[in-house]
């Protein structure tokens, strides 16, 4: 708790004044949550994948916000890499989705629930 309050009351540069670190963190947390909830509730594989992308980007926002807060560049560098990886994952996901669609003519996640227990 203490860390968060410290951050919220941090003396930030004037340009950032309207939006404190806390705002960005809440945004990122919200995005992460939305992504997670979306992943849980949507059945379509593509939408589900997009939800994971949303979660990745939530992390990205947090990274950039922290990077700015700490006044150093590592976080931003990190984001570049995250984007790259996300792209790679997207490529993979699409290939997979195509494969699956060919097999079942559907992208409903429930189609693939043969193995259990």
């Amino acid at each position, binding site marked *: 708790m203490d860390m968060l309050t410290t951050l919220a009351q941090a003396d930030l540069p004037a340009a950032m004044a309207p939006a404190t670190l806390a705002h960005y963190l809440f945004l990122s947390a919200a995005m992460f949550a939305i992504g997670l909830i979306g992943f849980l509730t949507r059945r379509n594989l593509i939408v589900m994948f997009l939800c994971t992308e949303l979660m990745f980007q939530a992390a990205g926002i947090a990274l950039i916000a922290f990077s700015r807060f700490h006044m150093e560049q590592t976080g931003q560098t990190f984001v570049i890499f995250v984007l790259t990886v996300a792209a790679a994952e997207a490529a993979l996901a699409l290939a997979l989705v195509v494969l699956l669609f060919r097999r079942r003519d559907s992208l409903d996640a429930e189609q693939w629930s043969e193995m259990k*227990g």
Partner: protein
Amino acid sequence: MTERLPLLLPEIAMFIGTCLVLVLGLSPSLAARKMTGIVTGGTLLLAGILAVNTSTGYASQIGMPMPGLIGFGKALIALVGLLLVLLVAGTVDRGYERMILAGRATYNASRALRAEFYAFFLFSLMGAMLCASADDLIWLFLALELTSLPTYVMVVMSRAGSDVGGDSKAWSRAQEASVKYFFLGALGAAIFLYGFALLYGGTGSTKLVEIGAALSPSAEPNTIAIIGLVMSLVGVSFKIAAVPMHFYTADVYEGASAPVAAFLAFTPKTAGIITMVLLATAAGWGYRDTGLMIGGDRGTLPPAADVVLWIMAIATMTVGNVMAWMQTSVKRVLAYSSIAHSGYMLVGIIAGPGNGSFEQNGIAATLFYLLCYGVMNLGAFAVLACLENSSDESELQTVDDLRGLGRRHPALGWVFVLCCMSMLGLPPLLGFIGKFGLFTSGISAGRLPLVVILGLNSAIAAFYYLKLVAMVWLEEPGDAQDRVRPVPFGTRRIAAILSATGVVVLAVFANQLAVSSQEAARRGPGVMLKPRSAERVEPAAPATPESVAAVDRVR
């Protein structure tokens, strides 16, 4: 940055090897394509040699957080990787090559998967190796993703041609496995990525060493970093198939072909364990290596992380074992048992490095157990990979398919039994020695309840391992088992026999391995913890001259 290059020689070798494999795989000549496997093996051998020769001294000079881990981790990965190479032979393109030979198809580079498969194989191993040489969250993230992404593809590929052989079910299962694996994997990745972000946010650095300093007990309380740390650990637990990220395991292992399942049970898990060790070491574990005497500060994990790991360890062991108890499919039994083994390894991580000597060093025990686990688990999967149903070349499914294996195929039967007994932790096999390390370190850390639960879990595990052993060894084969035949890939048998030999021989000569893992678990001298306040000193080991002298073990 270039000062890191000498440490990356194995990865570089692997990268070159990967390129070579990709190129070779395009050749229309079967002989050349077959070379891919050999090149993969050669690459791993080379990487292994380079890894063994990694200079720990140099690594600690340049301030790596755990200099010993680099060489040890990579050598371990290369060693088990070599066995895996032998095992994965024939996983892809089997039906396709046969059609080419029979003249029913012509070679088409876009249909042949062999090169890609081996390339992915190497990439994934390379990712795991990179984890071992990580000192930074970004590096760690990339390495973990490099480990995982190829495996998603490998799962699909592993059964790609199986409908040609007549086993259409396998193909659909492989797809299901890859869907589950990929999507849940992405979810897991998102979780640990978010954790990394918070960790960075809380500490202001992605360097593990600096994170450690920021999390040290003397520093200000740092809630964000703690949450980040815990989220990272939970996210990474997907890689090691620990509760609560274990759900995919059984389905994916069942869906993938046996060799790939063996690969999945080892490579991402190794990467995950190494990551957890690095994180845990950064976040608290550490001890000063003060010349002759080992001891003094052993650090503590942040309580939150400790509690969470504790819960995870118990849940993982228990869930893995009790669920394995219920299974009828061999691969699912092994999958759940691999979950349980992750739980055992978490015990070591919780126990921490103790005073640094092997028997009290949970980190070393974990790393040692990782090796044991790699060898024995691979052996069990290898036996499955060596057998198929003669009708449709499908893999063995149920435990009952193994009935009387020891009579029909004594060698495979012995391998299976030895590996199961070793996983059970039966002395004097390798698994026992691994578990003994976990036992001693857990008790040394004062984690008696955890160790007792570990013991009870081993007992639960004994039930299903015993069931497997009895099926293989004590039952007479029936007519249903007549259709089981060995696969035509001799290297798989070699892998099986090698791992069974390892289970026995390594147990006898385990000392060198133990010493190495002890070295690997040592924290670099450049990253001493800041001195802590007096009230934080562990009361268990008052640092009087006598006790320091006492800890210097008499052997």
